[in-house]
């Protein structure tokens, strides 16, 4: 009988892992809790740093999945991994046998309403980066009452590097997301003044620093080093913000038409469930701890459980897809050994 591998999660990492496994002659099944493949990418408009439409990547991956004949189960959620990766239990109580499991269950978005001082879901014109992507997809950035914003403030590190909400890690990709979105607003509305409040700017990938510099120099986006301490709504539904401009050492106040909270990646809720399985350990951040950060990034301490994508740490799309390939090869190696 041919070997069968279960992939938990049909985001970019899971899709690529499944496709690669099929290429290596191993049958794979993707179990996706939502009603379609794509994961978080389904909600994104364009990708940093090249402004590539998210659909371009998504359609290609879906195409690969379809061509390779991977079995896909949607609206179907795994509740537990059992027998060290030899079976999984689904939410409906049924169970599936497998020769190995690739956990590609991804991350959760930080719920911005937990940072009450910024007024998300309290004030009308406070949005998140996710809301903004939806606006880009649906025809443009507007305030709640449909006006073009004249001033927009971005706030970096919402739910990242913040002990107060138990998110001590850096989410890595949000810095460049904020830069990308600030540019997109300037492209859409050149007369809008855009301010970005940051603690550190971490431009870790190829082309990121270049995009940041473009944002500064070509698009005249005002980067202010300092974290907004609080936001409040004015009588005309604008948002007044307070911060320190730490580079001049003075407190600063301004009113904007729109405040965008750049939300971080939080460890997936399901990671706690996976950790009940022997061989799956979590970091204090609740991201899953791979077997070895240098030599075993897609492996667990269990012989039949593998990882791909943001289940282990915040990553960008390219890194996640590459991990899908890496995990598939590790699985194939392991199954060959047996």
């Amino acid at each position, binding site marked *: 009988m041919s070997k069968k591998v279960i992939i938990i999660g049909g985001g970019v990492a899971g899709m690529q892992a499944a496709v690669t496994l099929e290429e290596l002659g191993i049958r794979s099944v993707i179990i996706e809790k939502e009603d379609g493949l794509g994961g978080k990418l389904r909600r994104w408009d364009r990708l940093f740093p090249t402004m590539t439409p998210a659909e371009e990547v998504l359609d290609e991956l879906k195409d690969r999945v379809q061509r390779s004949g991977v079995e896909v189960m949607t609206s179907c959620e795994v509740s537990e991994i059992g027998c060290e990766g030899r079976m999984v239990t689904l939410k409906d109580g049924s169970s599936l046998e497998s020769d190995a499991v690739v956990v590609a269950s991804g991350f959760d978005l930080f719920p911005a309403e937990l940072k009450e001082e910024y007024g998300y879901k309290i004030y009308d014109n406070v949005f998140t980066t996710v809301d903004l992507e939806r606006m880009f997809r649906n025809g443009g950035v507007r305030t709640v009452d449909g006006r073009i914003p004249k001033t927009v403030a971005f706030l970096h590190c919402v739910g990242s590097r913040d002990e107060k909400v138990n998110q001590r890690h850096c989410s890595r990709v949000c810095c460049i997301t904020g830069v990308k979105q600030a540019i997109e607003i300037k492209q859409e509305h050149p007369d809008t003044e855009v301010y970005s409040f940051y603690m550190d700017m971490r431009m870790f990938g190829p082309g990121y620093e270049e995009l940041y510099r473009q944002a500064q120099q070509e698009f005249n986006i005002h*980067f202010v*080093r300092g974290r907004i301490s609080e936001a409040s709504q004015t009588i005309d539904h604008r948002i007044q913000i307070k911060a320190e401009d730490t*580079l*001049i050492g003075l*407190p*600063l106040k*301004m009113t904007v038409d729109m405040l965008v909270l750049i939300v971080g990646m939080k460890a997936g809720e399901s990671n706690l469930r996976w950790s009940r399985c022997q061989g799956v350990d979590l970091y204090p951040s609740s991201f899953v701890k791979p077997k070895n950060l240098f030599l075993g990034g897609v492996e667990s301490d269990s012989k039949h459980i593998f990882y791909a994508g943001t289940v282990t740490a915040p990553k960008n799309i390219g890194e996640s897809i590459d991990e899908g390939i890496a995990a598939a090869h590790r699985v194939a190696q392991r199954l060959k050994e047996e």
Partner: protein
Amino acid sequence: MVNWGYTITRVRRVDIDSNDMSYSRKLLAEFPELQSCIACGSCTATCTAGNLTKFNVRKLQTLVRRGEYEGVRKELEKCMLCGKCRLVCPRGINIRGLVQKLKKELPVK
């Protein structure tokens, strides 16, 4: 009137809403490379004047960008135009040129 000896403390906060941002806007339009400052402080570290006085060109240009012009022009008189700041800037900003421009355009206040 009786002088009770009390005064009203001036707010020291930068208020973008009420500051006159027109010169800041004009400066950034004419000198866009200024926005690419990453506040590394190399200019101030190497500054001849900065090592003898409190002159801090990194901070002064940020103040101007935020619409805080008061006292900047006077402060700029400390600069000796040696140009070392421009040599060390990792973003290639012509800081010496900026000082000359500000000295020409900012009000003496």
